[in-house]
Structures are given as structure tokens and as C-alpha cells.
């Protein structure tokens, strides 16, 4: 299994509060991705990174920001959480752009 961890695994927060999710890898892979999974939508890309300090938007990036200051860490921040951001968030990594390997997920509930 690819060495990917996500923290926290579960979080409940209130509307309007900032939230940061962390993805950590031990594979030294160049590419890292953040997805959200919602019923009926599969996995949708929020943001991705193709190197340290190199990030770009995915298809559902509104309300989210990311940072990657080290190869191994990719942070996803919800600046002001909303109920529509209640979801399961997955981080994924890829070395040469073929398969992506996913972390265990973070279940976020915004009340």
C-alpha cells in the first residue's frame, strides 16, 4: 500500500469556521490531489499539486485553498466552512501520472 495518511479522519465543525485537512505521503511522489466524494457525483477534483509550491484548481475549487511547502505534505483549507462542504475528502498521490493512490479519507461535517 502507498504510504498516504490523512488527518483528521473525522471532523465536525460549525459554519463559518476555518478548517484545514492534511495529507502526508512517504512515497516522494510528485503529484498530489484533493477530491471530494458525494453521493451521485463520484470523486470530484478540488485542487492538485505538481510540485512544491506548484498547485492548480480542479473542477470544484470554489471555497477551498491548498498549500504544498514540502513534497510530503499537501494541505486543504476551507477558509469559512459551509454546509455544502460536508463531504468525504480524499487525498491521492501519483508518481508518473498513471495510477493514483488514495488515502483513507476524512469525513467532514459542517453544522
Amino acid at each position, binding site marked *: 500500500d502507498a504510504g498516504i495518511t490523512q488527518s483528521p479522519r473525522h471532523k465536525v465543525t460549525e459554519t463559518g469556521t476555518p478548517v484545514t485537512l492534511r495529507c502526508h505521503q512517504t512515497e516522494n511522489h510528485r503529484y498530489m490531489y484533493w477530491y471530494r466524494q458525494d453521493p451521485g*457525483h*463520484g*470523486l470530484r*477534483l478540488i485542487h492538485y499539486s505538481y510540485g512544491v509550491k506548484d498547485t492548480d484548481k480542479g473542477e470544484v475549487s470554489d471555497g477551498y485553498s491548498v498549500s504544498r511547502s514540502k513534497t510530503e505534505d499537501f494541505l486543504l483549507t476551507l477558509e469559512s466552512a459551509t454546509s455544502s462542504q460536508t463531504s468525504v475528502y*480524499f487525498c491521492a498521490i501519483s508518481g508518473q*501520472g498513471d*495510477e*493514483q493512490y*488514495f488515502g483513507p479519507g476524512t469525513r467532514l461535517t459542517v453544522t
Partner: protein
Amino acid sequence: DQQVKQNSPSLSVQEGRISILNCDYTNSMFDYFLWYKKYPAEGPTFLISISSIKDKNEDGRFTVFLNKSAKHLSLHIVPSQPGDSAVYFCAARDRSESSYKLIFGSGTRLLVRP
């Protein structure tokens, strides 16, 4: 506009029989296709892939078929086992994208009945 579609939300199959999961796509720039399996409360795990230059790829009980003219791929599981019960996602990569982003379908929930 969904570029990757899995039109069957669920499928139920008897143990030992064949499971066929289908996926359609619209983007002719897709050059690599993947299937992922997901159990509840876990991340998706990579199952099998196929390049657009091939029409079939096998790995044990799992075979993926690609029909480029119909923009259709399918995953065959033979024989199906109860442990195969999970949600299956197909995904596709756009060769015009340098980021190697994947586009996922909405998933098909497979139930294999003992």
C-alpha cells in the same frame, strides 16, 4: 456535463457468476482508463487499467475491455465473490492535460450474493 458516465448505480450478481460493470465516456482525448474499488469507510483502491492503444487487459479474475469507437469500457469479474461487493469507479485521463488529472464516473455499487 459528465465526461465519464456510469449509468447503472447498482448491480446484484450471484456468487460464481460474471459481473459486468459498464462505463461510457465522451472525450476523445482520453488515453488511459482505470477502475477503482471502494469499500465503505476506506479510500478507493486501484484495480486495473487499460491504455487506449489496447482493447483488453486481464489481471486474474478481472478483465477490462475498451471499445474506442463506442467510447465504452467495461469491467468483467469472473467468477464473482462476496468480497467483491463494493462500489466501483471508472476513471479516465486526458492526454492533453499535463497534470495527469483523472475524471471519475459516479460509481456502481456491486452486490455479490452468496
